[in-house]
Every structure is written in C-alpha cells, then in structure tokens.
C-alpha cells in the first residue's frame, strides 16, 4: 500500500484557540470526575465502616457481620486498585524514550501479571463473604458440611471462571494484538 500523502506537503493550519479551549475543558472535566469518584468511594467506605462498628441491626449474627466485613475489605481493595490503575492509564507518559514506552506497553497489555494479585485477593474475599452468607441458605440440604461448601464453591468459581473466560476473549481480541506488536517492536529494537 502506498502512502498517498505528498512528501512535500506542509502542515495544515491548526486552530490553536479551538484546540486549547477543548483541552482546557477536558482537563476540568477529568479533574471533576476524579474528585467526584474519589468522594463517592470515600463516603461508601466510611458508611460501611461505620455500620460495621455500630451494627444498627442487633439481630445480625456474627457470621453475617464477618461476611459483611469481607465484602467491605474487598470493596476497599478494589477501589484502591482501580483508582491506581485508572491514574496510571491516564498518565501514560509519551515523553519517555520509545524503548521505555514499549516496555511499559508490554507490561500494561500482558494478560496476567503480579499487578492482578489485588484482584485475586478481592475475588477470595468475596468468596469468603459469599460462602459465609449463603451457607445458611443451604440448611434445608440434608448433606454434610463439606458438600454444602463445595457446592457453593463450584457455583462461585463457575461464575468467576465464566467472567475470566470473557475477559480472556476480550484480551485476545483487543489487547493481545497491541501486546504482540509492542513485543515485536521491542525485539526489533534490541536486535
């Protein structure tokens, strides 16, 4: 395929005023979104924490409260994780030398890495909360304790696996080509 741009073509005139006002508007909007998100998460975390401490419903058993605590911790870790991830994505540094940008791209678009450990912790915490709160709902089952637990685990990990599979398919389609391209370019550069 041949590039049909003229080699001697001069840059087209740019409407700087328009561009600047658009960028400033976008900057303001991003700042506002970040602040609103931060305060929403902070408010929810504090409300959950407060509810856990004062326990407004005395009929709630300690097992239910433990399940609630697992969900709160999972929510908190998830919030911090996605907050940092969002910030990192936003501040993708284009001013670094190409090699470093490519190394970061390979890292960002890799399917699995240590960066996902917090997500695994969240999934395990939700599993604990889910198991504690749903165990009682299986009491009509005339089966052994472990059978009930295993049934809950099978259901939960089945849902997680399906989610993981959807994530993997999405990665194959959207991120893998970028990851592969960045890796190839890095290899070409280092050769």
């Amino acid at each position, binding site marked *: *395929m*041949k*590039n*049909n*741009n*003229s*080699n*001697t*073509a*001069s*840059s*087209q005139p*740019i409407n*700087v005023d328009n*561009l*600047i006002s658009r*960028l400033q508007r976008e900057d303001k909007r991003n700042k506002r979104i970040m602040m609103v998100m931060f305060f929403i998460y902070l408010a929810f975390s504090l409300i959950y924490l407060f509810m856990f401490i004062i326990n407004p419903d005395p009929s709630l058993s300690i097992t239910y409260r433990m399940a609630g605590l697992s969900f709160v911790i999972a929510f908190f870790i998830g919030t911090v994780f996605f907050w940092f991830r969002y910030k990192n994505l936003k501040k993708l*540094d*284009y*001013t*670094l*030398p*190409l*090699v*470093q*940008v490519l190394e970061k*791209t390979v890292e960002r678009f890799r399917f699995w890495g240590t960066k996902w450990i917090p997500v695994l912790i969240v999934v395990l915490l939700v599993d604990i909360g889910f198991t504690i709160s749903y165990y009682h709902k299986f009491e009509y089952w005339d089966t052994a304790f472990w059978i009930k637990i295993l049934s809950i685990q099978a259901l939960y990990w089945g849902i997680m696996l399906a989610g993981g599979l959807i994530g993997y398919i999405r990665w194959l389609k959207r991120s893998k*080509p*970028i990851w592969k*391209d*960045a890796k190839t*370019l890095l290899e*070409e*550069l*280092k050769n």
Partner: protein
Amino acid sequence: MNPKEEKFRKIVEDQQQRIWNICRHYSRSDEDTQDLQQEVLINVWRSLDNFRGDSALSTWIYRIAVNTSLNYIMKENRRSQFNLTLDHQNINMLMQEEDHEHKIETEKKLDELHEIINQLNVIDKLLISLSIEKLTTREISDIIGITEPNVRTKLHRIREELRQKIQGGNHEK
C-alpha cells in the same frame, strides 16, 4: 493568557511542520495525518507541565510524535500503514551517495527503492524517517532510547542493505 497556554502556542507555531512530517509517515491521507497531528498536540499539552528541559524541546516533541504515532498504528492494527514517502533529496541523504554516478542511478530507481524501504520492519523505517528529518545520531538515540553506537550500526546496516538491493536489483517483489 497563562504560561502553559503561551508555551503551547509557541510549540504549535514552531514545531507543527516537524510533527506533521513524522505523522504523515503513519497515515494514509492528509486527513489521517491531521487527526494524528492533533493527537500528538493533545499529548504535548498533557505532558507540558512535566517538561523540565532535560532534553532539547525538539527531541521531546519528536519523542511524543513517534510514541503517539506508533501507538496509533498499534491500536488501530495498522502496522502496514507505516509507509515512507521520500523525494530525491531524502534519498540522497539517506543513502549518503557521494559518487555522482551512483547518485543518478539511485534517483532513477526511486520507485523501486520506495518499495524496498517499505518492506523493511517498522523500527528500520522509523530510523529512516528520523534520519531524513536530519536528526543526529545523538538525537535519534535520545528519542528511541538505544545507545548512539547502536543507532549508527543500525543505520549503517539499513543503508548497506538498501544499497545492495538497489544496486543488485535483487529484491523480491
């Protein structure tokens, strides 16, 4: 007008042709080039607060232009879109032909050379695009992040490869 805005206006005024020159290699049409140039300028704006002057402003701009352009073709899955279009002056500079006869010979084979160049890998094409922008090996090394000797070796290898192919006329079509 605040200082950031003032700085940005100056960059657009002084560097837009340079940015355009880089962007046009990665796009199919002038409209595409314009979009890409706009994207580069957006990234310049976003990074402006972090510019500390450790490298020359032009090198800094080139880094943003190259990174944004490569990111653009990777995201759009358009690696094959990275095509260099060179003129006679560029070709002579690229090939460093001193011998007059070779110079004429090379110019005659401009189309053929275009085809050979565009069969190179992305990194080699990138190096050529920076080389024809008259950047020094030091500047190219700053933009790409590999050592100066490595840049020199790579450019030498590419030139040799092109020279051999153009003189031997043995490239595969």
